[in-house]
């Protein structure tokens, strides 16, 4: 269902546990935090169930993040789902929300996040393990509070552009001095529909332009990779394949990036 923003917030008081798909508007998250709701980020693997359980609802050849969201939605006991289907997410999420609304006995509320207030991107520019920073960024969508004790920025030696991958293991190949760009940076900034921020990259450092296979962002990732003077375009589906790992490893090493 689609409600006006005020109604979407007002009905939060009826729920105890909600799932989110994408990044719903900050006022929704703030309201959920104020009511003490448990928030599950359905885009992340949360349950030990086969991804095939999503196949009756979505094609097998489909975004692995949304297939994961469907598996989570089917197996978690939720009171409602807030799915962002605006310019900060994608048409695939809109269609997934339509399908879930019919398949589940709970309300599936579509939102359109057009937030423009920048909350900053300290994690994207910090010198810390890339996996830890990406975990913190994805955890951050469940809280309306800004980043506590933001780390200092570092000089980058490499960059990762894209969405948080379904399989974080590929992030372990990057050095701690890797800056994050793309939609993951928009997530930390709490402006997921900021397409100008999403398209930014640093031409001075070797950059891996990553997208989930079958995601519309593969076009943007490949387009930007062609514009960047030293880039690797990479798309990965459910799990990081050995050839994907080898490509990243070789790209970084042959670019002179130290681990």
């Amino acid at each position, binding site marked *: 269902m689609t409600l006006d923003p005020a109604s979407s917030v007002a009905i939060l008081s009826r729920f105890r546990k909600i799932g989110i798909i994408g990044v719903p508007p900050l006022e929704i998250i703030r309201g959920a935090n104020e009511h003490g709701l448990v928030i599950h980020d359905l885009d992340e693997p949360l349950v030990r169930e086969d991804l095939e359980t999503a196949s009756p609802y979505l094609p097998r050849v489909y975004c692995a993040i949304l297939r994961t969201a469907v598996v989570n939605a089917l197996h978690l006991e939720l009171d409602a789902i807030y799915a962002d289907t605006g310019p900060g997410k994608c048409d695939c999420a809109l269609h997934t929300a339509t399908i879930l609304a019919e398949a589940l006995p709970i309300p599936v509320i579509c939102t359109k996040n057009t937030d423009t207030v920048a909350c900053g991107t300290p994690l994207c520019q910090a010198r810390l393990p890339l996996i830890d920073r990406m975990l913190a960024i994805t955890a951050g969508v469940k809280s309306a509070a800004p980043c506590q004790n933001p780390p200092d920025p570092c000089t980058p030696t490499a960059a990762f552009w894209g969405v948080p991958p379904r399989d974080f293991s590929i992030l372990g190949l990057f050095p701690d001095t890797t800056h994050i760009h793309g939609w993951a940076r928009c997530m930390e900034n709490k402006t997921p529909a900021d397409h100008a921020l999403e398209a930014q990259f640093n031409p001075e450092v070797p950059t891996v332009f990553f997208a989930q296979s079958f995601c519309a962002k593969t076009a943007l990732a490949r387009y930007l990779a062609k514009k960047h003077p030293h880039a690797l375009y990479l798309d990965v589906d459910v799990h990081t394949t050995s050839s994907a790992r*080898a490509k990243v490893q070789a790209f970084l090493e042959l670019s002179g990036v130290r681990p």
Partner: protein
Amino acid sequence: MILGDFGTSYCKFLDLDAPGAKPAIIATKELPRETRVDLATGHNGKRFADRYVNELIALARGGEALIEEDEYVLLDCGSRDIKFIRYANGKLADMGWNAECGASMGFTIELLERYYELDYTRLRVPEQTFSVTCGVLGMSDIFDAVISGVEVAEAVARFVKGIAINAYRFAGSPAKLYLSGGLCDNPLFVGSFPCQVTALGRFVLLRGLEAEAHHPSPPPVS
């Protein structure tokens, strides 16, 4: 120091401590389980050595050792996958590794030669080609063509040409490319590329390992 390139169908070895020694080849299915080398590459390599270099890095280092130009495309066509590196101004500019949609192309070419008792040195490059993106799926085109009356040799030659064109496109459709891998010895395959081809043979990755053995550390970022 013994170097090993552990491929899907063939393994190649070079002993750096034996001056003038030539690389040795052994079919992977005949490889003794207890084999150990000092430095390995290839998708089977991790099992046989303590130190492993991934295939793209070995390919790139081999290219740096064998090719004098600053700008080139080096394409490796193996049994299981295809991969390429492109250098511009003496630096890595692009790379690719297709282990999924390029699956089993080299393996299928060898399989067809044996199954149909063909000799690729005697087959001419055909005018027509199949649109082949995968060795396994491409076999259907051969069967369909044979059923429709095309000679087996002609159908297989179209398949081989289709694989060469697919690999050429994968490498970015260059005007000239350097070719690595066992398919360098297949004149039908080499002749099917719609561009100038320089065949470097099947030991490019071993040359890359040799370079890694001498210069193991990458230069720091400037």
